[in-house]
């Protein structure tokens, strides 16, 4: 009651109050009015600031607020072999994640339990991953609990998601490669776009979570396979729900690729190569259509299963792939260069015939070696060996028996006998004419240009003057010269087809998603090799003789006239027995009279005659005889 103690006196006070009516200062009311004006004036000033001065800016902000751009992904083009066999499939990869910030305040244990039951992951582990995720990437980035979960589990979790706040099932597009390691180098693989790639390609609408071709045709034809993703602009409410579509650009699906590869031939080549690779770290084989440049088979071993890149890849297994001595991720046909060894004699031979250094009847006798005196000190004598004392050989014999001495003469000459050779510059010139020393231009990424040495190069790279001995080594494909197996194949292919150096390719045609052909690229001529038909004929005949009566006898195939050249190229340090390890090569073409295909076989440790040649024979046999037989069985 305190303050109202004087309650009773109130009535009696009334007349006094009434008298007081006009008593109080009208100034107080004026002040109150002024305060009202002042306070409302302050509000008005801020309103002018917000609405009149910054109005346009806020209007823009409000518009952005209500609009969202939704990407509409295009589906990636498929890839087929030349006979229409599918090589890839598009599928989805699911992972289970939790957005820490969306978890119910006190109910996260229930969400964890649910996830634990479906995924068989202990609750403690989930809790830990959520904590780590929240700490590492923030509350509103999904923390992945389990990667690559199976489809059934993903569907169950998607059903449960509305009742388990914070739970998220992440779906990513994924490529499945149906032929596994068989075509891994040709197809390549896709992977999450890297920060650098994104910075470079951001203009083309790549999103940070997109996948992009990382190697092989997946990378080479990325823009064609990808198509054009669309997008739509939608108006959303504050909850992010779509209200209406304001504009939409439909995605254009990627085009399909038809490879020139024949999957059956590829499989056979891989099989044969494994059989003959022996102790090699790696081996490679390729078959090319000499008229078009299409590659019918392209095997590099060891391979890898490119499907592993579609799933989570531990850094250990990636390191194992990278560090393995055979370098499985490398396509040895195009990315590695080797001494071409005696296969290079075909080029020196062609040059020698063309330059008149040699004629088919030019006879040189191999006593098993030649000697060269040192220019300044005649007491110092260098010995250049042949692989055997082969006796007197004409041009055909020189190729067929793969005489080193014969080609020492053709490349470097023998001044004391008055024999003038091509000289290193001419050898280099013809090597380049056959495509050595620069990438073949095959439609695959990561090609090595190889190396064609000459005196200027040696001065610069080694710091020593070019010597006659260098020319001799050059003449038999040893020393500094290095080529990729594919370069050797395209060179042989040019010899087979009469001199057209073609750009090899693995894609035969582009199709739309309904299988309609969009483009079939024409054969691309890189260079017309400057060798007369007659000389080419002589060279081919010599290569034919190599298979019929020379060192390439193991390359012979029943029913098909094969021509070719072996190579056994020394590499690495000298062994304790004074010899070197050798690469085994065979390059050749068939049929001899009407060449259709050219072949290269390379084994990193082996011999041209005993390993590469029989391997080539088996592949050629399958190509010329195998499918025909198979067709007869298929068609009753």
């Amino acid at each position: 009651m305190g303050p109202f103690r004087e309650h009773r006196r109130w009535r009696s006070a009334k007349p006094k109050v009434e008298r007081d009516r006009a008593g109080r200062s009208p100034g107080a009311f004026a002040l109150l009015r002024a305060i009202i004006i002042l306070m409302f004036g302050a509000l008005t000033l801020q309103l002018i600031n917000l609405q009149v001065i910054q109005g346009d800016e806020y209007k823009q902000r409000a518009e952005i607020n209500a609009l969202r751009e939704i990407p509409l992904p295009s589906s990636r083009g498929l890839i087929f072999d030349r006979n229409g066999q599918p090589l890839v499939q598009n599928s989805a990869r699911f992972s289970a994640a939790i957005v820490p910030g969306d978890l119910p305040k006190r109910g996260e244990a229930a969400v964890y339990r649910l996830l634990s039951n479906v995924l068989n992951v202990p609750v403690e582990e989930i809790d830990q991953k959520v904590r780590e995720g929240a700490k590492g990437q923030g509350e509103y980035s999904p923390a992945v609990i389990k990667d690559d979960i199976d489809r059934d589990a993903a569907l169950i979790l998607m059903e449960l998601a509305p009742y388990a706040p914070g739970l998220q099932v992440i779906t990513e597009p994924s490529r499945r490669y149906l032929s596994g390691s068989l075509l891994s180098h040709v197809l390549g693989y896709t992977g999450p776009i890297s920060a650098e790639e994104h910075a470079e390609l951001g203009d083309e609408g790549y999103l940070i979570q997109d996948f992009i071709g990382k190697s092989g045709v997946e990378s080479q034809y990325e823009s064609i396979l990808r198509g054009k993703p669309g997008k739509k602009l939608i108006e959303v409410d504050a909850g992010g729900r779509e209200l209406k579509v304001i504009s939409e650009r439909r995605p254009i699906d990627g085009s399909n690729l038809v490879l020139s590869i024949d999957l059956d031939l590829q499989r056979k080549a891989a099989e044969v190569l494994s059989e003959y690779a022996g102790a090699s770290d790696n081996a490679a084989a390729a078959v090319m259509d000499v008229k078009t440049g299409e590659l019918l088979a392209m095997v590099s071993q060891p391979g890898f299963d490119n499907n592993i890149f579609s799933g989570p890849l531990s850094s250990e297994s990636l390191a194992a792939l990278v560090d393995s001595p055979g370098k499985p991720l490398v396509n040895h046909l195009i990315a590695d260069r080797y001494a071409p060894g005696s296969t290079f004699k075909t080029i020196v031979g062609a040059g020698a015939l063309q330059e008149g250094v040699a004629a088919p009847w030019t006879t040189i006798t191999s006593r098993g070696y030649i000697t060269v005196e040192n220019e300044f000190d005649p007491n110092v004598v260098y010995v250049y060996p042949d692989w055997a004392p082969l006796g007197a050989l004409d041009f055909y014999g020189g190729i067929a028996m793969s005489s080193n001495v014969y080609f020492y003469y053709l490349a470097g000459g023998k001044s004391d006998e008055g024999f003038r050779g091509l000289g290193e510059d001419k050898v280099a010139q013809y090597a380049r004419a056959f495509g050595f020393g620069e990438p073949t231009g095959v439609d695959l990424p990561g090609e090595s240009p190889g190396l064609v040495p000459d005196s200027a190069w040696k001065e610069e790279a080694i710091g020593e003057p070019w010597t006659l001995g260098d020319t001799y080594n050059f003449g038999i494909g040893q020393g500094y010269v290095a080529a990729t197996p594919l370069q050797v194949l395209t060179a042989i292919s040019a010899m087979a087809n009469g001199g057209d150096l073609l750009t090899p390719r693995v894609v035969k045609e582009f199709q739309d998603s309904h299988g309609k052909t969009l483009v079939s690229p024409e054969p691309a001529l890189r260079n017309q090799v400057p060798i007369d038909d007659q000389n080419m004929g002589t060279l081919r005949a010599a290569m034919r003789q190599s298979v019929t009566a020379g060192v390439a006898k193991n390359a012979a195939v029943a029913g098909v006239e094969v021509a070719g050249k072996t190579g056994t190229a020394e590499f690495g340090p000298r062994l304790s027995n004074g010899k070197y390890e050798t690469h085994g090569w065979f390059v050749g073409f068939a049929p001899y009279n009407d060449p259709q295909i050219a072949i290269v076989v390379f084994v990193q440790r082996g011999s041209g005659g005993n390993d590469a040649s029989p391997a080539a024979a088996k592949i050629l046999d399958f190509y010329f005889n195998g499918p025909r037989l198979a067709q007869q069985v298929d068609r009753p």
Partner: protein
Amino acid sequence: MIYSRAARHFDFLLLAIAAGLVAYGGILIYSAHLSAYPDGVDLGHPLTKQIMFACLGLGITLFVAWLDYRIFGQMAVGLYASAVLMLVAVLFIGDSVYGSRRWFTLAGQQIQASEVAKLFVIVALARYLADRQPRIQEVQVFLISLVMAAVPAGLVLVEPDMGTAMVFGAVWVGMVLMAGVPPKHVLVLVGLAVSLIPFALIVVLGDYQRERIHLFFDPNSDPLGGGFNILQAENAIGSGGLFGRGLTEGTQTQLDFLQTSTTDYIFAVLGEELGFLGAVLLLALFTALLFRGIRAATLSRDHFGRLIATGIVIMILFQVFINIAVNIRLVPVTGIPLPFVSQGGSSLLMLFAAIGLLEGIVLRHRPIEF
């Protein structure tokens, strides 16, 4: 007799302005609810309810005006006691909404205790200060009036409802100054209060208020959480520009970016859809209303009436100011409805009762002529 007198002195303009504000609010409530009630207005629509409350309010105005306001002076003790009782009760049996207890449910209606309490406390303070006119200079009177205002303000603060507590404070300051308390008393107190701000920030304010003050200065620290409303209201008002985006055309309002868009943030709806001109119209209406309230105070025949009118004017003024200032980010967020405009029964009925008191003061501005 009373009717002829009513016809002569009744402030029709005051009531008309109040009704105009309710109608203005009704339009905004309709627009803000369009996405939730796309089929138009029917019996279940919040606007229908608002109109019903307004009609009831009109009745209350006439009834309160018809009663001699001095009756309320005699009831002052009871009114004050029941105000405090309600504020205590709501802390225990109230419904918790948005983390604070402000409402309790009576006969199916949610009643906001502080709305009713505000008016009761104004009446009680007016009565006390009017009674103490001869001793108005004494510190004791000043301090007792302070306690009378501080008890309900403190209870409201506990709910927590910072805004209403501030309204209590403003009303008290205005009333004691109008009653003739020496301004230096008030100045000392205000000085004391200001010096206690750091202490208050640390000890008295809950996490809830500290968070709101932090968000006021940096709403972008939590743009999707606590800062969401602040930023979206600012966006809405700013995007209205000079002429507004048109009624029912504001994307912020219609796409539900504004929360509590018919109560605490109804001004953001107005700012977005009717623009600066709409906002100025609203402020003009309030200015007119408050000036009519001051007129009632000047006409009052006694201290009691004048103090009630002053309290009511200051109460409405501060509610309008705080509400709009929160919307346009001049002061930290504190939930307070915009008088007459916001959707809400308790507030509307209380305000119409207040208008009734003002009318009653105007009607009896000179001795009854028998």
